[in-house]
């Protein structure tokens, strides 16, 4: 069984209502969540999925400490005196609340207690008792959300990270939505063996983390993660708290650098069975880390890879053309793009190459639902996903 204790050094997801934030737990660290600042020390040693109450820190308006709770009192235990049959006599003139903004802020800074604040808001509303039960409930939920004083600590997973990044800003993942990600994983046929090649020009590490997660722990499979910049984006990779042996099988290399090494430095990576040589000749100038990674990657590329995944800001044709040389015959190419047109070009290009069959372009309509008694309907907001091209490489 996995260890469920929250430890310093862990990346955790802090969830307050529907809002989530990724946080690296340090000793005596604080986290800012919306307008709240929280001291995080109290969660260390507690368990994942535990819930904590935000308690006002004496003398500070915005600083809170966290206290573990085992139950949450219901806001609906507030006694409602009266409800209207419908809203026909309510005229909303924006003046129905007797409390001023300042008075409400004061309540909040005295004690963040949604139950208490919502109760005060209701007592001071001129129209609340005339509203229908349905409207009363809606009002209370909305206010409760705003003053909700509980957070839950979650262990990061690919699902949670994909959803969080996309919600924060779709460009953080090049526009890859969870449905796109899910299909990139299945169509690439990635699994707990073989070598997998990824070109990723900026998904905040989501795509390499997802592939590495599918490759799994304690096996000989590798991911060669190629990126165009000086440093690769790693947020999701580190967030996943992968064990070291698994992390080591994700080899991060620069696109130009690894190709230069592959074509112009064949002797270097072919002759050296990496570890031994270094030990034997300790006095020789130590190779920089990136060079060691390049050579590792080149040795794997030389053998050929079992999948090629590309998610590029750039036009995909020239990138695919280069990297597809390393893809073994009988294996899959999967290319993501936020717009359809570059994939149309790639489609025609692959058709002309003649060594690809089963080339498809797909996109998804993804819809979420609110399922509640007598109030079931699709969510009123929707996003548009991207496009995925898949193709099967023939043996030459």
């Amino acid at each position, binding site marked *: 069984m996995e260890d*469920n204790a929250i430890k310093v050094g862990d990346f955790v997801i802090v969830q307050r209502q529907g809002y989530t934030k990724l946080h690296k737990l340090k000793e005596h660290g604080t986290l800012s969540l919306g307008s709240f600042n929280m001291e995080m020390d109290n969660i260390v040693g507690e368990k994942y999925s535990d819930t904590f109450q935000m308690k006002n820190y004496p003398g500070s308006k915005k600083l809170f400490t966290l206290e573990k709770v085992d139950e949450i009192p219901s806001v609906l235990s507030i006694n409602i005196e009266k409800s209207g049959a419908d809203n026909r006599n309510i005229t909303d003139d924006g003046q129905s609340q007797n409390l001023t903004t300042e008075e409400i802020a004061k309540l909040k800074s005295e004690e963040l207690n949604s139950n208490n604040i919502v109760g005060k808001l209701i007592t001071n509303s001129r129209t609340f008792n005339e509203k229908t039960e349905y409207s009363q409930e809606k009002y209370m939920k909305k206010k409760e959300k705003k003053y909700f004083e509980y957070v839950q600590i979650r262990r990061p997973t690919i699902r949670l990270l994909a959803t969080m990044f996309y919600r924060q800003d779709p460009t953080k993942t090049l526009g890859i939505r969870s449905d796109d990600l899910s299909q990139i994983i299945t169509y690439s046929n990635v699994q707990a063996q073989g070598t997998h090649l990824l070109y990723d020009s900026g998904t905040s590490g989501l795509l390499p983390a997802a592939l590495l997660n599918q490759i799994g722990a304690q096996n000989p499979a590798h991911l060669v993660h190629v990126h165009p910049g000086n440093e690769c984006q790693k947020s999701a990779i580190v967030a996943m708290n992968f064990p070291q042996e698994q992390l080591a099988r994700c080899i991060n290399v620069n696109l130009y650098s690894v190709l230069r090494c592959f074509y112009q430095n064949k002797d270097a990576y072919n002759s050296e069975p990496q570890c031994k040589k270094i030990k034997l000749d300790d006095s020789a100038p130590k190779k920089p880390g990136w060079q060691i990674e390049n050579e590792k990657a080149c040795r794997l590329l030389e053998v050929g890879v079992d999948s090629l995944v590309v998610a590029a800001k750039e036009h995909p044709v020239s990138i695919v053309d280069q990297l597809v040389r390393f893809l073994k015959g009988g294996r899959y190419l999967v290319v993501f793009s936020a717009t359809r047109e570059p994939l149309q070009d790639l489609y025609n290009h692959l058709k002309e190459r003649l060594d690809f069959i089963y080339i498809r372009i797909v996109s998804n309509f993804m819809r979420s639902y609110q399922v509640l008694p007598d109030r079931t309907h699709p969510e009123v907001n929707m996003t548009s996903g991207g496009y995925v091209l898949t193709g099967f490489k023939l*043996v030459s």
Partner: protein
Amino acid sequence: MSFDGYKTTIEEGDTVILYLTINQVYSVRAEAKTTSKKGVEVDNVFQTPYGALKCAELIGKSYGSKISLSKGWGYVMQPTPELWTLTLPHRTQIIYTPDISMILLQLEIKPGSIVVESGTGSGSLSHALIRSVKPTGHLYTFDFHENRVKLADIEFSQHGLSDYVTVAQRDVCDCGFGAELQNRADSVFLDLPHPWQAIPHTLDVIKESGGRICSFSPCIEQVQKSCGVLSKLGFQEIQTMEVLQTSYAVQTKRLPVLDLDFLQSEKDGSESKGKEREVVKCLTAVPPANMPGHTGYLTFATLPPVWARNLQISLNQQESSGELL
């Protein structure tokens, strides 16, 4: 034996995908002999629109290579769960790759996961689950239909997957998932006519540290009932969604461009008659005229670890008390 890992060469007994065109994809077995409907052993010959294929001839060929047929050619591919979903024999309605993909991601399945599935159906999802959990995880899959269980078991064995899967006949709505699986599953998948009857049993089968559940249902009434039960039992992150995939055909359309300006001046239009009509090319990708409009609703939820369940039950009571007010 061709579903486990990456292969380069077709061996005897392999299931092989025969690709003719994007709409003509079949699965065949690389075996010299097969049993006819009448129970007689006959030569294993597969009839294609481009001529007959003697399946014995596939043995030794490379996966990903071209093969000749009497009136054309085709390609042989190693089966993947996706290709199997396309070509498998339908014993039930099956789940397709867009839904399967979302199920895998949402159930957080990875190598080592213990997954429980009911019903097995035609095994479409099962193959994808197995790819994801192997080599260290395991799939336990149940169906109440005797024949489906038998056939699924044979297929898993033929596909070389028996080490990673256990298939059994069981009515999980009535009987639950069995004592031997008590608190062993990381995630549970349900595709049942009355999923809300099986959901209470998932509390017994999911690990004490919690896990994920998915229920696939074609009708909204099934979803409404399931969500109600999930909420009552203290599941969190109860979320219902649909994924509809569109597949595009890339086309270069040729649109005529009408020349009309000459009509403003020319006295006689005849000289323009002979003109070639100008045409612009337009690269586009069009969806098919008819596409799937609905497969099913996917309802996902998290069962919190035992230490967090009571709190979640009280939270859910607040959430749903709108109906009680």
